[in-house]
């Protein structure tokens, strides 16, 4: 139930981000969601796409520094307390959250949270036990 996410090292230079998007577009790869973390000197672009193997290959060929990471995508009710419930389950399972970002699922009005855990398997198990909808690739990419 884990999803492959691409992390791409970004230079804080004009054109670097658009170059990545162009490489993906040129190969007909649709971005499901992306998140950008940056500092003054560099940034990390995190991207979820269906064709992650092809995307990683094409981006590496284009000279980008790419790393694949397993993340867990969870569907939550778009209402107060939705996020809190999940964080509690994860805390009880003794798993650490390295980062999290959210997006709205295109098929419904529900929100999807993407988590990077230090132990993705343990986190996914704990979430499923608590009846949280952990999304598989098939659901996410349709």
């Amino acid at each position, binding site marked *: 139930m884990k999803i492959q996410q691409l992390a791409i090292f970004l230079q804080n230079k004009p054109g670097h981000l658009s170059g990545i998007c162009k490489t993906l577009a040129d190969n007909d790869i649709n971005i499901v969601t992306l998140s950008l*973390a940056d500092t003054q000197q560099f940034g990390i672009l995190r991207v979820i796409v269906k064709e992650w193997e092809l995307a990683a290959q094409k981006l590496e060929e284009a*000279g980008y520094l790419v790393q694949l990471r397993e993340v867990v995508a969870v569907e939550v009710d778009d209402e107060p307390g939705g996020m809190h419930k999940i964080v509690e389950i994860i805390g009880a399972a003794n798993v650490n959250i390295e980062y999290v970002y959210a997006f709205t699922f295109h098929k419904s009005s529900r929100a999807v949270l993407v988590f990077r855990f230090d132990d993705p398997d343990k986190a996914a198990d704990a979430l499923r036990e608590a009846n949280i909808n952990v999304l598989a690739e098939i659901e996410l990419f349709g």
Partner: protein
Amino acid sequence: MNKKPLIENVFWQREEECMPKDQLRALQLQKLRALVARVYASVPAYTRAFDVAGVKPENIKSLDDIRKLPFTTKSDLRENYPLGYLAIPRREVVRFHGSSGSTGKPTFVAYSKSDMDNWANLCARFLYSGGLRPGMTAQVSFGYGLFTGGFGLHQGIERIGAAVLPASSGNTARQLMLLQDLRADYLICTPSYALHLADGIQSGIIDRSSLNLKGMFLGSEPWTENMRTRMEEGLGIYIENNYGLSEIMGPGVSGECAFRNGMHIAEDHFIVECINPETLEPVAEGETGELVFTTLNKEAFPLIRYRTRDISRLKYSHCPCGRTSVRMSRITGRTDDMLIIRGVNVYPSQIESALLAIPEASPHYMIEVSRPKHMDEVTVHIELKPNSMVDSISELNVIRDRICAGIANITGLRMKIHLEPPNTLERFEGKSRRVKDVRTLKD
């Protein structure tokens, strides 16, 4: 300092190499006075230079008086192209060599019969000390040509009585084939080829048992102690460092002993000084500076106080091997590349050696010096290796901080570190500089 020998401690010319210090200094003074008288009389370029400096041969009464003599530089050699410094009749020359200039024509050096004999012995000194013995085979992967590396080492190997395999430079696949098929005991090559070989063995491309290699003699390019450790571990061999430059003779000017406490300079053949390249005054003992050599025995092409542009340190302390000569540290840079940052001398090679200790850092870097608000500021751009972990800001910050601390440790300066993706910095060939100095000097 190493107190135990790493290999057998032996001498090629024990009497000369272990001469008591007072006797060595007396010999140097006697030879220096004869040299100064000879070049003043027979080399017009020196007659002029001595006259301009207002010094006569009879003014040289002690070894310290060498400082009254003018320096000789690479551009002096160029101005007196091709053989303005030749000190013997042309018909007595038995060999020419040359060194490539970064611009246009090479500079030439010449050797007499006796110069060739001395050169072979000086190469044999470091080869023998590094483990080469009669009956062994040494593969020479330096170019045979004007460059002194190939022919210089060749003569030293022959002098010892070992077999020479003159592979010459280039074609790494053929080098490896020769090494495997003729089972050379020693390889003489550049540090970059040695690294290539070590990587090939570590990654399983080359089978270690197909080689009979016991050791290597590396030279002709700057390299670091970290590189030696990596290669000695990767290849399971002993690697000796030696130093030389064509203007002074070629390889054999200095080489390591079995205790590896720096490279012993053949002081019975050369007088060495270590100077501040800005003030031209001698640096304090053990301090970093530019090496300056005076050749005491060369008949054909003697040079007075030749400025090497090579940066090193001299150690006069006792070495347990028994040699009495001064030792020099490995070359840590060239004065051409030297940067003065907030009054501190910094060499790009120092940054290079700091980067070698960081697994995520590639050897590709670029140094940018600027002066915002009257304070020098250095930014080092470093490419990450292609397989680096990049999904965590905090991990990347840790890499950045480790590079910063490593550089500060070696240079004493804190520099700004910019991590860059692979293959984004300009690639440099040969002597080009990796430094962009955009300081504008304002009063």
